[in-house]
């Protein structure tokens, strides 16, 4: 009997000890879970932070690139506009020099007299200068700008086309210089617009992708408008060789 009692006592002591050890184990497990949760949260926040910062910086770079490309467009337009007074001057001196050949070009020919054509060119230039905006974001603003500049282009082209009908004028060095300046101005505009569109495409794509669209909205970045291709413009030539 005493032995059974001792045994029971031993058993109950063992149970008591086992109950105390189980309580201690539960405490440790809770701390680990808390640490895991904290760690995961920290990593998520870190992940979000890195992504946000780098995405934001990338968007800033793209916006700067688009602004810089727009600056080139403006430079090209201004360069052409600056060309017009010289062009008009050159044509008037050219007319004086080639008076005999040009007699048939002025009043006697059909269409607009040359002097009026020159006046219209000057007016188109002033109009184009007035329409210029900086860093347009709205498509309609860009379309309006494009319209006035295109009118100026057409006026300049029409003026030169007038002389192309006369071989003796067309072969002169003076005409060659005028034509080169005009074509050069138009080509610079074309190149600048193309590069602007590429920069805008890059920006707009980044603002549509995730997480750029969220970061962009939060930071207030807006998509930009494109220069639309002129009618009859060819596709970009393949340069792969």
């Amino acid at each position, binding site marked *: 009997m005493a032995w059974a009692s001792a045994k029971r006592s031993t058993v109950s002591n063992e149970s008591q000890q086992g109950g105390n050890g189980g309580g201690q184990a539960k405490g440790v497990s809770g701390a680990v879970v808390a640490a895991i949760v904290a760690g995961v949260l920290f990593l998520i926040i870190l*992940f979000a932070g890195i*992504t946000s910062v780098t995405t934001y910086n990338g968007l800033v770079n793209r916006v700067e690139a688009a602004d810089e490309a727009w600056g080139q467009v403006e430079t090209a337009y201004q360069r052409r506009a600056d060309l017009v007074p010289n062009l008009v001057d050159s044509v008037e001196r050219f007319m004086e020099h080639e008076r005999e050949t040009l007699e048939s070009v002025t009043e006697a020919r059909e269409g607009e007299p040359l002097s009026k054509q020159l006046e219209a060119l000057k007016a188109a230039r002033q109009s184009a200068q007035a329409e210029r905006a900086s860093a347009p974001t709205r498509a309609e603003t860009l379309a309006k700008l494009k319209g006035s500049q295109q009118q100026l282009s057409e006026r300049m082209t029409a003026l030169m086309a007038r002389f192309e009908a006369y071989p003796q004028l067309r072969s002169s060095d003076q005409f060659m210089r005028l*034509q080169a300046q005009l074509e*050069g101005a138009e*080509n610079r505009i074309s190149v600048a617009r*193309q590069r602007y569109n590429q920069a805008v495409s890059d920006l707009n794509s980044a603002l549509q992708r995730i997480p750029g669209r969220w970061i962009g909205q939060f930071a207030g970045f807006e998509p930009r408008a494109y220069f639309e291709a002129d009618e009859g413009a*060819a596709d970009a*030539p393949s340069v792969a060789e």
Partner: protein
Amino acid sequence: MQRGSRLIFAGLVLLGGVLVTTAGFIAWQPWSSTGGAEDPQLVVDGADLLGAEQSDRIAEFHELLRANHDIDYRVVTRDNVDDIDRFAAEAFRRREVGSASDAGHGLMLVIDPASDVLRIEVSRSLEPVYVDAFVAYIEQRQMTEFFAHDRVADGILATTEMIVTRAQRAEANAGLKQTYKIEGSAGGGAKASARLDDGPSARQQGTDQQVRVEGDGPVAVLEAYRRAMANRNDNTDLAIYSARTREFMAGRPRTPAQADNTARSLRQCSVEGVQKQGDRAVVRYPIDARQCPPYFFVREEGRWRLDLVTMHKVVQMNHENEWGITTRDHPYQFAFEDWKQRAGWIPSRGGQSHGSSLVRTRYVEQKDAYYAKTQGVKLAGDKRSAVRGNGRFIALSGRGIRRGEGGAWRLGLVASCIDDAVCWEDDAAMWIKGDGERVQLGAPVRSQSRTRDANGRSLELSKYVYRLRSDQLRTLAEASDIRVGLGGESYRLGQKGQAMITGLYDETAP
């Protein structure tokens, strides 16, 4: 339990790494798609318009343009490019034309034979120098005139000469100097019809007329020639030409730009004097006027006439548009003997010029210009030079120079060796030899650098500057055939493929 914690910790670290990497990958969204530079070859003949030899010729010349004027000028031919303006701008960007220049100076000629159109694209940094009107001028008044005669390579090179002249004028006014590099093109340049199948152009109106010579004597004839060139008179039967000259000029392209250039040169150059001997005469300009070549005249039927045939053989221009005499074996040598006696110098071909007419470009001095050619280069036989066979080679190059205000004359040589070959080790092995004895040069000041040639191969440049005594200078100046030696081998001055020693060298020049 400890093992469990370690596992959890490791898992967290792994998760963290994955998340950070992913964040970086998402954030790194390439926002410029320029891609790498394409082949930096100077001539890419995709349309098979030029032969291999012609391509090499052009590449050599353009390499000198880069070395002497820091202009990276490439040529691309390709059929059916559609819009040549856009093609040129895009190809300029993809090939990073101008990258071989410290200042970003780049030019690119695109020729589309199938569409019969060409364009020269100009980098931003060069637009102030090569304005659109000038580019149109050299295309239409020079290049395409040769193309019409089916001389494409000649047309390209003749135009490059005009580019060199323009660069020289710009450098004289500090027009090419820049403190920072501006890369890329903005659409500058011009395009023109290539006229590849046109045939020679119709003669200029009114040029069938003869020119009137006012007065007698070679100078009067030269003045009539100047007026004819000013009017772009391309009539090859002018009475001011000798009979042989008329035969020589028939069928050869005579471009408006050449006529303009000749007229300008004759207007700007002041005649120094006329040397006569029997039925021959030479109109000379001051020897320092390196862009004013002498003119030869022969008396036929009682009249003085231009002997352009002999001039063409004897007087030639180098890549810097400086005249030089190729040989002493000609009937007009009598006109140059007093130059030799008086000043001891006679300008020679290939930019190799001496004495007071030496020309040096300081920029080239700082640039470590070099020249390397893959074929026909003789290897140095001196074992101490450490030059091996099997495709490695050594080339010696120098450069045209401009005279400085004073200081000792020095011979500057640059040896370029491909791959890792050491050019040569024994500096004292260098010697020079003119018509007389061999003259041993002293120990040079030596420096080394590395660069790449037009094909992308690594080159070691060893630069040697030898101080010359006056007798050594005279040896170089007076000799008709100058050789520079390295150990047991020697190189003829100016001989292509072997050595390209093009001039003397003054380190004190401004």
